[in-house]
């Protein structure tokens, strides 16, 4: 009974995962792809639960669905990415190539699996009756802070590096704003309007840059800049 239940669950989850994955690749709208991928992640989290790994399942949801994919969705929304337009592309041949190569890859993987399955079975620990403890938080924590302490620390360094890298990448370079004076009758020092005049902080009141420039007689420079 329990076996049948597990079997059904597995089939459902595996089907969801494969279906979502295929949908992800097939969709041209990146947001749909992202949602499909979230589906895959959810299905995988469920599969982890069937494998008695609740901690990893939770972390899977938190990290992948909750953090990474949120970020992806956020970026998609931020950039307002359009659907991939159908247009004459130079690399049309890549689609059949990719399918072919993927098929070969799967064939090879299946071949290996076949041999793995065919190989004399290792002494299965599953034969023992007592429930597995490998998936529990405590055992993972123990492993992480004893045997795998160094990799753990290294990943922390990696995270730090990624943090710095992402900030560096995403930071807008200090470009000179197009509109030097924010509309709304702001009072700005002259050196902000015309950076060449360092040290001159005569206040300028204006609604637009053009007006400020007119006030200050900077028209020539405005023209030369353009």
């Amino acid at each position, binding site marked *: 009974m329990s076996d049948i239940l597990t079997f059904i669950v597995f089939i459902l989850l595996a089907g969801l995962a494969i279906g979502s994955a295929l949908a992800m690749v097939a969709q041209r*709208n990146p*947001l*749909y792809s992202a*949602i499909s991928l*979230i589906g895959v992640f959810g299905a995988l989290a469920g599969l982890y639960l069937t494998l008695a790994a*609740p*901690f990893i*399942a*939770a*972390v899977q*949801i*938190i990290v992948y*669905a*909750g*953090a990474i994919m*949120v*970020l992806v*969705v*956020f970026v998609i*929304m*931020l950039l*307002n990415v359009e659907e991939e337009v159908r247009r004459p592309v130079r690399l049309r041949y890549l689609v059949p190539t990719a399918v072919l190569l993927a098929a070969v890859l799967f064939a090879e993987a299946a071949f290996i699996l076949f041999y793995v399955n065919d190989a004399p079975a290792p002494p299965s620990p599953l034969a023992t009756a007592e429930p597995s403890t490998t998936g*529990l*938080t405590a055992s993972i924590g123990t492993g992480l802070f004893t045997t795998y302490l160094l990799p753990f620390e290294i990943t922390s360094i990696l995270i730090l590096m990624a943090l710095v890298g992402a900030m560096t990448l995403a930071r807008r370079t200090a470009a000179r704003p197009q509109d030097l004076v924010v509309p709304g009758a702001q009072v700005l020092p002259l050196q902000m309007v015309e950076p060449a005049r360092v040290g001159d902080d005569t206040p300028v009141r204006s609604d637009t840059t053009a007006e400020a420039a007119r006030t200050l007689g900077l028209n020539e420079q405005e023209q030369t800049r353009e």
Partner: protein
Amino acid sequence: MDWLNNLVGPTVARGIFQFIGINVAFVVVLMIVAYTVLAERRVLGFIQGRLGPNRVGPGGILQPFADLLKFIFKEEIVPDKSTRFIYFLAPFLAITCALMPIIVYPFGPEIHIPGTRIVFPLVVARFDVALLYVLAITSVGVYGIALAGWSSNNKYSLMGGLRSAAQLISYELSLGLSLVGVVLLSGTLDLYEIVGQQGGWHGLRWNIIFQPLGFIIYLISAIAETNRVPFDLPEAETELVAGFHTEYSALKFALFFMAEYVNMFTVSMLATTMFFGGWQGPGVSTFPLLGIFYFLGKVICFLFLYIWLRGTLPRFRFDQLMNFGWKFLLPMAILNLIITATVVFFFGT
């Protein structure tokens, strides 16, 4: 009631009881949520020196049902050029993610059903990583809002959705980290056990005593997570009309509405569980059912706090919100974590 055991076996008998329990829990929660809405309107009214809704039923007691009926019978409006599938998906995601965490909260201690050998805790599902589960589901909750904002094909909605996503991601960190202090103290992620550890000493073993800073951080982050005043930027009426749900109406809007209040309810439950001893209270050991009332009472206090804050506080500006989250709250959470870890390391739990 041993006949039930004899009829279907203990597992199924327990399953039946749990099924009943789940339904009762959900109904109770939804009722409380419905009345929270009413309570909010009334309390706000009082705070603002007016009465609030008081016409439907005695003292307005049937107002939630009237609202529900109104939502059901309103016209469904789907914006042109919206991304339909996601537009429909979003509210369901929101309400689902709001409701799912409820199953792990312990409403009360173990109940022994009289006349049987059946003993079960007043919790729908009890497992090793309950807290992580809550955090996981909470973190997924952002999709509802973000996708709703995006799929409406409306710039106000999009802005609301983006703001919401940014805000939720930002405050989730502080939220999680503030809870890690409690986890360090109790040494488990199982909510039921965390509550169990807070019993006795007349409330002096509540984690709020040991984690005051953690609690404050949690409280602030929780309010931000639920998009409530003063962190209700995603639906800032004056700037963004109604934020991400500008284009939603009728039942789908009701789902968002409900999700918001359920979220309030769940974070309040989490606060109660983690910091205020859950169902612990005087006399629980004698009358275990008393625990349910203690628990809900504490939760309702939190809900009142929410309403109170809404009535009194102004709204943050968005950059202030992000700065506060990243530059103040997160460092404080880390500080709290470090202090807790140091203390635990040197003095044990």
